[in-house]
């Protein structure tokens, strides 16, 4: 079942890349919404999947609008948001351990090129797990800036965020070793 979902996700993303008009993507959006409804995902949980990319989506839309035109900006942005929504639907309806096992099975051919499927699937799982932590970190950085009366600046935001993320990655790597996962 999980394997099917992941295949479906891959197929869905391919279709999204092939769709070229705002009308087609609006149709795709309706399909995605229907899938969420069928899976009985609460709207708050659904928004939780999209929320982390909202600024990225906005930036993408504006850039495309400046570089191309409104239809192109709409198509590109909707495509990315719908892909995230589809991936989110899979994560919401699949326990991480089940996904890990399915990915590991699906990635088994990688062994031929001497890549450990467990490592790849673990990396993907860890990426999922990092999203709430990074969202939290971003909120704390913003609060710390507000507390010091610093007005908005990309650098003052990005530097502590990147440092924090790297420190987290470091600590995580060490914790994985401590749990015996690097041998």
């Amino acid at each position, binding site marked *: 079942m999980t394997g099917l979902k992941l295949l479906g996700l891959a197929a869905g993303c391919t279709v999204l890349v092939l769709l070229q008009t705002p009308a087609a993507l609006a149709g795709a959006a309706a399909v995605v919404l229907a899938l969420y409804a069928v899976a009985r995902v609460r709207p708050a949980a659904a928004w939780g999947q999209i929320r982390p990319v909202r600024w990225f989506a906005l930036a993408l839309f504006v850039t495309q609008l400046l570089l191309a035109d409104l239809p192109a900006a709409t198509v590109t942005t909707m495509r990315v948001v719908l892909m995230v929504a589809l991936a989110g639907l899979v994560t919401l309806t699949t*326990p*991480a*351990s089940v996904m890990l096992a399915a990915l590991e099975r699906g990635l088994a051919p990688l062994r031929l090129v001497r890549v450990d499927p467990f490592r790849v699937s673990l990396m993907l*799982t*860890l990426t*999922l*797990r990092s999203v*709430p*932590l990074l969202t*939290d970190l971003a909120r704390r950085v913003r609060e710390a800036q507000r507390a010091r009366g610093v007005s908005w600046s990309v650098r003052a935001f990005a530097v502590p965020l990147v440092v924090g993320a790297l420190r*987290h990655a470091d*600590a*995580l790597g*060490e*914790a*994985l*070793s*401590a*749990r*015996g*996962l*690097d*041998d």
Partner: protein
Amino acid sequence: MIELTGVGVRLAERDVLDGLTLTLPERRIGVAGANGSGKSTFARLLNGLALPTTGTVRVLGMDTRREAAKIRRRVGFLFTDPDAQIVMPTVAEDVAFSLRRRGLPKAEVAALVEEVLSRYGLAAHADHPAHQLSGGQKQLLALCSVLVLEPDILVMDEPTTLLDLRNSRQVARILRDLPQQLVVVSHDLALLADFDRVLVLDQGKLVADGPPEPALGHYRDLMA
């Protein structure tokens, strides 16, 4: 049993630890010292996360330089920040993750996970996202994920530093009942007060070593 012989650790051209020769047979050992005195490096030496630049560290009869992987299977490590060591999205999955290399049948894994979670009052949260737990609950989860493997030795690096008084006391109570040999780095003097032996580090050197009362007295004087 833990044995250090002439251990020094040099990082970025500085002696982070220097001249440590110690035999630690006691069951509960505390480590205190100022920030930057080398406590975390000391703790990380005990499961091969850090290796000595000079000398040798032997744990359960094995050299950490040669058999780190084997040692890690028998030495559990608890970090200060549980967010860094919780790997899976939900509570039960994280504990089960520890067991994956054991190759146990699913039902057995589920039973072990259930048992350890209920022992520490987390059974009701089994299917909750780990990031929604309180700080104290997260640290308990991290502890469950370590204890489910039934290690022979538990090393903890400031396990209560991020916890409030109530959660610190709960962790202290749990530690009191654990059968394992414990090495606990802490600034929480109450936590170490009934330990068998306390080591005090200052700038990478051992400056006090003995029963908690005199050793922690020495630590207080250092901090004054």
